[in-house]
């Protein structure tokens, strides 16, 4: 297995070098950002073009990063969610508090929590770029948390069981999860790239080291 990462300690190749070479072995792609058109995505796409196994695959990346696909996959695999509605315009029946995610090409850091129903039309209009892109609307019933997930480990010990399950289902090595904690249970709302600074790279290195020993 080839480990592709910008982190020199544990990597066999940097993403830039990797993309310039043919691939003959399975690949573990370690990156903090797998968004479409970013280097993390290209590494997986390059490996898939050469027909080798890659973790995460491009379908897995897109299933995690596009909000409706994330929620549908979570539901099918028994990971708690509280549903979503895909809208382009405000409707009378929509009510706050709600969490909104722009489902457009600029999905990083695009979450808004709206506490007042009267504010919904204006915010939906803005986030949908005037009905050009859909917005995924989730009800808010608990306390909202942002956590960084690294190979199933979490920056928040209380929810490491949840992040373990998330990693098993979605196979994304590093990401930021937006969740709600409602009456002690964790509900998944969104997945987006973590910034480099948010990642505990010691944890990542340890995990990669463990995986390497298994090869």
């Amino acid at each position, binding site marked *: 297995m080839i480990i592709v990462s910008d982190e020199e300690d544990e990597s066999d190749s940097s993403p830039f070098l990797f993309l310039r070479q043919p691939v003959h072995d399975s690949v573990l792609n370690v990156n903090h950002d797998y968004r479409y058109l970013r280097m993390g995505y*290209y590494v997986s*796409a390059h490996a898939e073009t050469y027909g080798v196994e890659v973790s995460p695959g491009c379908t897995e990346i897109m299933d995690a990063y596009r909000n*409706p696909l994330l929620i549908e996959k979570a539901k*099918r695999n028994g990971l708690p969610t509280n549903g979503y*509605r*895909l*809208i382009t315009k405000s409707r009378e029946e929509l009510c706050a508090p709600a969490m909104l995610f722009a489902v457009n090409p600029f999905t990083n850091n695009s979450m808004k929590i709206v506490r007042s129903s009267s504010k919904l039309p204006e915010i939906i209009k803005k986030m949908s770029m005037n009905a050009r*892109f859909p917005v995924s609307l989730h009800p808010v019933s608990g306390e909202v948390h942002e956590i960084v997930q690294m190979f199933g480990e979490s920056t928040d010990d209380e929810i490491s069981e949840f992040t373990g399950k998330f990693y098993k289902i979605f196979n994304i090595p590093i990401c930021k999860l937006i969740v709600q904690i409602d009456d002690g249970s964790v509900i998944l709302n969104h997945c987006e790239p973590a910034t480099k600074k948010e990642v505990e790279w010691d944890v990542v290195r340890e995990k990669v080291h463990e995986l390497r020993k298994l090869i």
Partner: protein
Amino acid sequence: MKIACFVEAYNFNDKSERGALSKFRSTAESFGHSFDFIFKDEISKIPEYDALFIRATTDPNNSAYIASRLAEQNGLKVIDDSRSIRTCSNKAILHDLFIRNSIPSPKSMLFTGEENAIDELFDILGTPVIIKTPYTRFSSHVEKAHNREEFIGISKRFLRKSKVVIVQEFIRSDFDWRVGVLQNKILYLCKYCIPEGGWKVRSRINGRNVWGETIAVPRDSISRELKDICTGLSKCVGDGLYGLDVKETKDGYSVIEINDNPSIYDGYEDAIDGDIYEKIIKALAS
């Protein structure tokens, strides 16, 4: 069978595109299927259908990708499938695919902004060079650079929105072959002509965007070599509906790109082989 056709409002702006959509619907109905247009805020209705046909512009960042993937997850027959969208929408990935599968194509290189690589790039590709963003479509974000200065200006602009651009040797031609492929068989054949005074199918001439003429040609007249190249490449992507752009040179054919979700306009791509609607509906219902 219930067929959903995922569209956006702009798909109904042009009379010829509207005409083609209407032909898809009447063809489906003549076979006893229902055919409903659905829009982005109706995506959640997709599981109610048996098949999904996408006509809205596809890109992994667009709603069409979500529609495609949700349909796959719910077991619908889908044109365009999500893998074809991911592959064809990205010219950097196509560059990789062409190399991997030895597809005859213009000499191309990826450029990520290192200025010390520019001279080598001109040495290999000649002058002028074509610079494209990975997400180019309908000839947009494709420009020509005649020298280092022009190259730096264009590539800097393109690299603001992309980690990588594709640089390609320039091949002059009067037209591109547009080869429609469905389930790895030739569906239609056209010449997409380059407008006079331009160098791509949609060219900027005297400050105006000008499209070249579309000339349909009988699909059975396709040369053996072109047919083999096109079906060989489509098999590398999937078994959906594709439009391949190919240049014919004195040295043979050279594939520029393979597109999922190819344009089908009433009176253009269907002008000779009018059964393309029937074949696509049959593929969706199979």
